[in-house]
């Protein structure tokens, strides 16, 4: 398939994001035989469109990092997408619901990378050695597809459902924490919606970035110094509605909050 076709699909998805409307998945009609590799080629075009608009990449984000989600999608490798500057919300800030389609929130641990990490052969230990800080985060995912109904190539093309991110302000050196044993709770209006520990992310959140570095290496790319990377959800995803006060609490990493506005 020529690049022009990937770009068309990317524009279809960007239009859905900008127009705040859900669309039919790519594999339903536009390209039923879309492969995982082609999904990433669409994503590359989508990233290119945003960069051409003057957006800046904050860092990659990992998806499908839990056993449950991998089983559900029948995959043995996570996926990645990219977080852009316009997606950031201040800790304690507000999320305007009218900007999104059908957002859900998840609690995650983010890594601020101190040195380039080049695969293949990267392990979790390598990642920890090259991590400057870890910090808590709430990720707001918002698939552009109807009812979050998609195949693996669809969600990859859709930038892994990336939508908004709230980073916490409590930064810790990774050696100060046992990241696989950090407990986190996700509450909405004071009621715990879900919870989990760091090991829910591929056994250890650092493993998630190791897999990212190894996946990027297959394309001649790497994890870069200065990237802030979302490693994957510790909890299930909860639906959001106007008026919700959302809080993620992390053992040793403090709390991250935001409010959902109209």
């Amino acid at each position, binding site marked *: 398939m020529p690049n022009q076709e990937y770009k068309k699909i990317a524009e279809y998805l960007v239009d859905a994001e900008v127009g705040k409307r859900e669309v039919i998945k790519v594999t339903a009609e536009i390209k039923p035989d879309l492969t995982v590799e082609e999904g990433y080629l669409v994503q590359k075009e989508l990233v290119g469109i945003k960069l051409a608009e003057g957006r800046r990449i904050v860092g990659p984000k990992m998806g499908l990092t839990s*056993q449950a989600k991998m089983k559900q999608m029948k995959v043995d490798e996570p996926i990645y997408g990219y977080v852009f500057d316009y997606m950031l919300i201040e800790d304690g800030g507000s999320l305007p619901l009218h900007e999104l389609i059908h957002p859900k929130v998840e609690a995650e641990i983010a890594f601020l990378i101190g040195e380039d990490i080049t695969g293949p052969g990267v392990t979790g230990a390598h990642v920890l050695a090259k991590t400057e800080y870890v910090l808590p985060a709430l990720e707001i995912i918002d698939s552009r597809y109807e009812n979050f109904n998609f195949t693996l190539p669809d969600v990859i093309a859709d930038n892994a459902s990336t939508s908004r991110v709230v980073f916490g302000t409590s930064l810790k050196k990774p050696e100060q924490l*046992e990241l*696989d*044993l*950090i*407990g*986190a*709770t996700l509450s909405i209006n004071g009621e*715990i919606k879900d*919870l*989990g*520990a*760091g*090991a*829910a992310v591929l*056994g250890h959140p650092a493993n998630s970035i190791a897999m990212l570095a190894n996946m990027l290496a297959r394309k001649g790319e790497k994890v870069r110094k200065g990237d802030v990377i979302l490693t994957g959800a*510790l909890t299930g995803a909860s639906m959001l509605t106007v008026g919700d006060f959302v809080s993620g*609490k*992390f*053992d*040793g990493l403090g709390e991250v909050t935001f409010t959902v506005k109209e």
Partner: protein
Amino acid sequence: MGPKIKHYAAQLSVAELSGIGVLPITSDNAEITIEEAYQIQLENIKRKVGNGQKIVGKKIGLTSLAMQRLLGVDEPDYGHLLDSMVVENGGKVLIEKVLQPKVEAEIAFVLKEELRGPNVTGIDVIKATDYIVPALEIVDSRIKDWKIKLPDTVADNASSGFYVLGGKPARLSEIDLELIGMVLTKNGEVSNTGVGAAALGNPINCVAWLANRLADFDISLKKGEVILSGALSAAVEAQAGDSFTARFAHIGHVSVHF
């Protein structure tokens, strides 16, 4: 009701000894109340104590919203821990001693003062706690195929089987139990993860609930007793040859083999 209490208690006792599960009590008698179910539990505990076993603590069950929903209840339940249920850390549970075991990871409290309800609060629990340790509970049901309703599990000593204490004893002042993380592995693979908040928002709340509930029976939690405060994650089925380890933030790990 007296003869019926004894009858159902004897049924459960036979099931435990023979290793053959029985039909739910609630399928034989849909009218049975929770209070009667606790009387059945106490009947069997009294008999065991009469035979020389010792009560060493209590366990709290149904502390997660998921479990409470599954059984259609809105409060936890409890059972008795006997010295015969103790397995050493890293030790073995003989498969012929259990019917249909599952493993749960929990926080165990060891008390340095008596806790007597009503009106016990979280602060009282903190003051009365000597230390906490990581625990694995091997739950088991004498009811065939785990087909339990609330009165069935209550009568069956809250589906208790065995328990293992491990790790390093820690003071409550050093740890935020609400956010303590746990990962449960079976044969080296992650089965699930959990957090203290899974047990009624905080394991401390579970112990306070128990002290207050026991006041209804004029029973207290005693100095030195072990309190298993409730599962931090879903129970995982165990078979002969399986090994389980739960690792907790701050307080170490605990293992058991089948």
